[in-house]
């Protein structure tokens, strides 16, 4: 049983191959961090997995109808676009609507309130979403995705641009979702946070998956040197793993 299955997925844009033959399964309970250097194709991989761009090979999500896909996965693009100053509660309600709930019905209300309280937005209900700070907007958009109440949540760099406290609390939300039996697939650049919070890391580099496993298995000096060209410092402590990139090789 998996919430996402990719079978030899390949994407070619014009004549350039972005990645080829990527196979991946994400199971309930996993918090998967998708890491890799700039331009490795993390965003492209996730968009192809969702069926938003053409690809060859098979993705279990891309095969679904638009409506069924909306019940299988919630997607947070990197752009964090909020075009209009709609109230935060209405923004979160978009997720509940995508799940097929009426936003005024009991199931819809429950989903909206649960998502808002989980992201600490209860006191923001009537505020105009597009006028919030960047961090508050990011939290509102995560709440929207939570209200969609899907077995899988996919997010493209959801913690980029957040302060440390919000980075950590956001990672904890994803980890908690996984612990509840849902799954998250999240692209990340902060390898330290990825090491601490993800149950599994997938390293995308050189046009395919270079490593896939627990953070300790993936974040080896050899893999980091090969994929990112950096040396790293890595310790297992009583407080969990501490991982720090050191210098460019």
């Amino acid at each position, binding site marked *: 049983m998996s919430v996402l299955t990719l079978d030899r997925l390949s994407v070619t844009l014009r004549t350039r191959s972005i990645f080829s033959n990527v196979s991946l399964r994400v199971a309930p309970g996993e918090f998967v961090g998708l890491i890799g250097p700039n331009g490795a194709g993390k965003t492209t991989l996730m*968009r192809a997995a*969702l069926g*938003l761009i053409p690809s060859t090979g098979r993705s279990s999500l891309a095969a679904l109808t*638009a*409506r069924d*896909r*909306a*019940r299988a*996965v*919630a*997607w*947070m*693009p990197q*752009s964090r*676009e*909020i*075009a*209009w*100053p*709609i*109230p935060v509660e*209405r*923004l979160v309600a*978009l*997720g509940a*609507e*995508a799940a097929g709930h009426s936003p005024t019905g009991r199931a819809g209300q429950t989903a909206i309130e649960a998502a808002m309280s989980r992201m600490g937005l209860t006191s923001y209900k009537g505020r*105009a979403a597009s006028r919030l700070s960047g961090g508050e907007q990011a939290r509102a*958009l995560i709440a*929207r995705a939570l209200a*969609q109440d899907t077995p899988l949540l996919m997010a493209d760099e959801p913690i980029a641009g957040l302060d440390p406290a919000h980075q950590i609390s956001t990672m904890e939300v994803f980890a908690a979702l996984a612990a509840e039996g849902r799954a998250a697939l999240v692209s990340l650049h902060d390898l330290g946070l990825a090491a601490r919070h993800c149950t599994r890391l997938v390293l995308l580099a050189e046009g395919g998956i270079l490593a896939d496993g627990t953070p300790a298995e993936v974040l080896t000096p050899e893999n980091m040197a090969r994929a990112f060209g950096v040396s790293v410092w890595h310790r297992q402590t009583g407080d969990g793993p501490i991982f720090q990139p050191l210098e460019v090789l």
Partner: protein
Amino acid sequence: MRLLFIILILLVAGLFVAGLTVGPADTGFTEALAALVNGGDGPLPLVMREIRLPRALLAVMVGAGLGLSGAALQGYLRNPLAEPGLIGVSNAAALGAVVVIHAGLVASGTLALPFAALGGALIGVFLVLALAGAQGGSLTLILAGIAISALAGALTSLVLNLSPNPFAASEIVFWMMGSLADRSIVHVGLLLPFVLVGGAMILSLARGLDALTLGEDAAETMGYSLTRLRLVLVIGVAAIVGGATAVAGAIGFVGLVVPHILRPFVGAQPSRLLWASALGGAVMLQMADILVRVILPERDLKLGVVTAIVGAPLFLHLIVKTRRESGGGLA
């Protein structure tokens, strides 16, 4: 929210009655309405039923259609500067009408002009859809709309340039300014299906337009097919704008200004803005059509001129307000 709708509906109804009682035939308020309801012989029932009723109905339909179309396009493009003319259909419809005026075919039947305009609109929307492609995003739609708009505008200028005599030229120019004067109940019957079908198509997109607030990728993964949404939107807007241009000529600013004014009152939600802008458009166009009859009753002031004169300063005011709210910047 409910208060806004009650106010707008009362305004639409009040202006409708007011529009029925304003005109060159000097009549009392109750007298005019009694003639409309009771009918009978004599000139007044004829004026009411043949001239003023169609005019008032057209003002409501054209205004509502333009307001609705503007709100839908702004929602789809996530841009408050979008307006119904953007997809090129109004210029294409105008070209069709202008060709018929140029050819001197207007006298051959009252409906030659509107049918030619509808033909122009149909060709225009077909070309825009073909150019933009089935899978394209909003950018290709804007570019295709601008291209068709510019081409139709250039061809209209060519026709004007080649017009056989100054009378034909001035007829073309005056028609393009937009008017609801001297329209009959036949025009109402012609426009009604376009407004009803186009309106129903646009209103069916309400939830998808809400989801688009978060961008195209997010909307797509929330279960809305953007390919379908864009197709339904373009055909719906084209039906309304093509129909409205065919019976009333080019009327600008309603579809641009009305959604902009009403947005803060509906919590900026694209779905609620559709209904509000339809009612608001009807209010604005009815007011403008009463103004043209009151300000210069003997000079045949054109409706499109008044909507532009009222709309442009209103729009400037909104720009200044936006600047002030965003702390001086234009963003």
